[in-house]
């Protein structure tokens, strides 16, 4: 099979396979399997386009996950900056040659895949900042000079994504970055300043929002404001989840999704569909698997000796958790609809690719934990 020639290693492939974290791998696989069924249901119980392409993507990116795992952590460490800059370049490229869909310019046409660089930026930023804070000494963390650089590294992609416009993804990118900064030990007061600044700029930011974004926020505050318009998604999603009850309506029997009351059912609202068909037990199962994944990543981070490894794993675990929480919170009507996919479950190549890369690097850290980053 694959053998990374360029990287010196004293671990054989067999060693690497054996040192894979089994729980994490199985959980990822389980989510994958569950997502096949969910996707099959969104296709109306047919083995149709979404299901097929989702399965193919999962196979490709799950393989990618293994490949990345087997590559030395030091490689990822050293290529973090380039990875970040590369994605940043792609984000800029999107501005000029990106595909536009539903009023938003997010995608690059790569023929076999419409790549959404903003998804990759979620990982890119974490990787970049983890490396950054690995390098500087803990004494320097709170110095102004060392604060400016991460802030710029964070703001630049976030602004690029906001202007696509894609509020949800830019928020998730920013959250990932802020977590790294937080874990690195930046003093609380800076976050307070940042928070204050954010609040102050909120009115200005709101004036820049597109009408549909404004209405989404207003609708979140009062879904009955416009039940057939902007509130429709929240209302229908809640109806679907609630009507699932304890055990659900049964596989392929979710009337809400079947009769097209659920919008975006194969992407952002895949959890809703699953909840409707499998009820409270179904939703809890998925939630538990995601918690298990998060927990395993944190655990892996715990065993690592480098601050890069720890920072990366902790941050990624937290970011991963937030992706899940934001998606679920959104479909459950706890937070506004922002357009955040559910990791691995949701249909979408870029998102799955980003998550698999992120998870792969975590696994690489685990496998190569005894090796130095040098």
């Amino acid at each position, binding site marked *: 099979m694959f053998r990374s020639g360029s990287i010196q290693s004293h671990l054989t492939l067999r060693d690497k396979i054996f040192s894979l974290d089994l729980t994490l791998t199985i959980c990822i696989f389980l989510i994958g399997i569950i997502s096949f069924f969910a996707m099959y249901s969104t296709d109306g119980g047919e083995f149709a386009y979404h299901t097929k392409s989702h399965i193919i993507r999962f196979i490709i990116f799950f393989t990618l996950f293994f490949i990345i795992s087997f590559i030395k952590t030091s490689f990822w460490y050293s290529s973090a900056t380039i990875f970040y800059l590369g994605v940043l370049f792609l984000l800029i490229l999107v501005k000029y040659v990106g595909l536009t869909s539903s009023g938003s310019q997010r995608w690059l046409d790569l023929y076999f895949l419409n790549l959404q660089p903003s998804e990759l930026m979620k990982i890119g930023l974490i990787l970049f900042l983890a490396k950054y804070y690995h390098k500087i000494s803990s004494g320097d963390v709170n110095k102004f000079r060392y604060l400016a650089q991460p802030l710029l590294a964070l703001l630049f992609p976030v602004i690029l994504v906001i202007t696509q416009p894609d509020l949800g993804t830019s928020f998730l990118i920013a959250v990932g970055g802020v977590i790294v900064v937080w874990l690195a030990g930046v003093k609380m007061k800076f976050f307070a300043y940042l928070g204050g600044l954010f609040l102050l700029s909120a009115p200005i930011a709101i004036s820049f929002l597109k009408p549909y974004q404004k209405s989404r926020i207003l609708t979140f505050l009062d879904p009955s404001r416009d039940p057939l318009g902007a509130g429709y998604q929240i209302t229908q999603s809640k109806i679907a989840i609630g009507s699932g009850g304890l055990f659900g309506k049964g596989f392929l029997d979710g009337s809400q999704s079947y009769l*097209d009351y659920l919008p975006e059912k194969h992407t952002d609202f895949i959890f809703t569909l699953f909840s409707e068909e499998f009820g409270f037990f179904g939703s809890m199962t998925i939630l538990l698997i995601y918690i298990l994944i998060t927990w395993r990543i944190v655990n892996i981070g715990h065993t690592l000796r480098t601050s890069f490894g720890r920072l990366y794993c902790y941050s990624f675990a937290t970011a991963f958790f937030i992706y899940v929480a934001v998606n679920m919170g959104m479909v459950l009507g706890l937070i506004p609809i922002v357009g955040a996919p559910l990791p691995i479950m949701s249909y979408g190549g870029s998102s799955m690719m980003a998550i698999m890369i992120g998870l792969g690097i975590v696994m690489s850290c685990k496998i190569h934990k005894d090796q130095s980053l040098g």
Partner: protein
Amino acid sequence: MISDSGGSSKIRLIGRRMFILTAAKAVVVFGVVGRLISLQINESKKYKTLSDKNRFREWRFAPPRGVIKDYFGEEIASNQKVFQLHLIPENAENLSALIFRLKNILKMSDNAVSKIQKKIKSQKPWDPVIVSDNLTWAEFSRINLFLHELQGVEPIISVARVYREQSSSHVIGYVSKISKKDLQQKNYLANMKAAGMRVGKTGLENKLDSEIIGNVGHKRYEVNAFGKRIKEVSIDKGKIGKSYKTTLDLELQNLSSNLLKDKAGAICVMDIYRGDIITMVSSPTFDPNKFVHGISTKDWKELISHRDKPLVNKAISGLYPPGSTIKGLVAISALENDVVNTKMVQQCSGSIELYGEKFHCWKKKGHGFVDMRKAIKESCDVYFYEVARRLGIDRLSETARSFGLGDTMVKGFNEEKIGVVPNTKWKKQRIGKSWYLGETLHSGIGQGYWQTTPMQLCLMTARIANGGYDVEPRIVLGEKSKFSLFTEKKKNPKSLEEFFNTEQSKEFDDTTIDFGYKPLFRNQENINFVKDAFFGATNEPGGTSYGSRLSKKEFMFAGKTGTSQVRRITEKQRELEIKNEDLPYEQRDHSLYVAFAPYNEPKYSISVVVEHGGSGSKTAAPIAKKVIKKLLERHTLRQQVHDNYKGEDV
């Protein structure tokens, strides 16, 4: 090599901060789990309902109303096929363009269009709006021609109420769209919501509404988010309303209506034993079909501004002083109370002076010496002034009430008026003044405060004609009357006439308990005396309706005329002898006539009132004569139907 600067202290810091994040995550997990529990467990029922509401859509349709037939099975209120045009707003591509197009094709008025638009706004987008519920064939075919470009429009063949003739418009009533008031008054309408639903507004349509209306049907479909029907879940065809047979005779209705043509008034005919209302006609009449599909403002204004009030059912809502038709009742009251006897003689010189007031007889020259029979036969007012004076108003009013005046007798007709049976207590309460003795005298000839409906007069006559029993009117066949209860008990329903004729002479105390009718008399001779006096009035020279008699023995009837003044005749007018027809229409006397027929074996009673028709003998009596002739000609036929009727549903 790049070193991990900071070392273990840094890692410790990271760990500490990670701990905080983990705690925050736990909070979030609690939040999500809590929400899941609340949605999927606690409120699951609510959301299941909402989900079903999403899934299912119901289309409800109005059932055909039951048919109303006459005694012989002729349909009076029927159903006919109508072409309707329904519009389902959510199926239309461009609603306003569609409405504009329809407006042109159907040549609708702006008013009609705005009504439709209002209706669309008021209901769910998948509920059909009836653009027109009675398209002509030309319109219907024109719509079908353009149908391919009228997405969202559905031509539908439906069933609607139709009234084939207008003689029974008042008694049958009419149906129209459901109003807010209807919803408040008729509870059963709450689950009767359907496009094109009609509700009975007046007459029998209103009385029988809850049964005749039927049950709303529905089709339930599972639909997707775009309103497309996925599959039919259930269908309920609804139930056609119950049909009713009435006691009416359509042919007599038509005859009566024709006799009253160009006149204002009413004719009532009743079976004196069963109480069956055979005729209830009011004139002028109107076209009830106009209400079924919404009456135009012009037609409506015309109807309500008409001098003769065509919408009023004068048979039960028209109030008239009974005039001399009440004299039989006054005589009965006086005889029953032993105030006078039939032999009492009074001299009539054309007027009498009492209490400082001059009371006139209709005959200026006077009747000379008259006894009670002659007084009824020739309708001597002076005689009855004296009888009333001796009797007193309170005793008279008691008798009047027992014979059916001053109360609603036809059950279920909201429009029925009770009228006025005056007495001292009534005047004190309603007018706040004491009773004057002079008013008793006026009351004795049916003038003054009296207000009666033609139906009440007909019932009064029936109760006299059947020998003084409290028969009650009924109009719906199968409705339990006292008599039908009795015949059921006897299990051998012989004709009641026979029963009366053979057994009434025997101790009626036993039999009356049996057949349910209460005698209204103390001494039946008094009733019979009045019947005989009525005979004289019609069949003996000098009688007030002698000119309208039927001389064939089996057609001979007995009746009493009445002329009721609508104004006070001044002394000057009396002197000038102004003829009634020379007066302005509104001031002319009402013409009344009550009778029963045939005299030998009384079967039917009749009352005729012609508003401002002059004297009773001139206008009302000749009309009654024609009705009676037809009525008696049809008696055998009616009897056959009666004998074959087994009380089954129609």
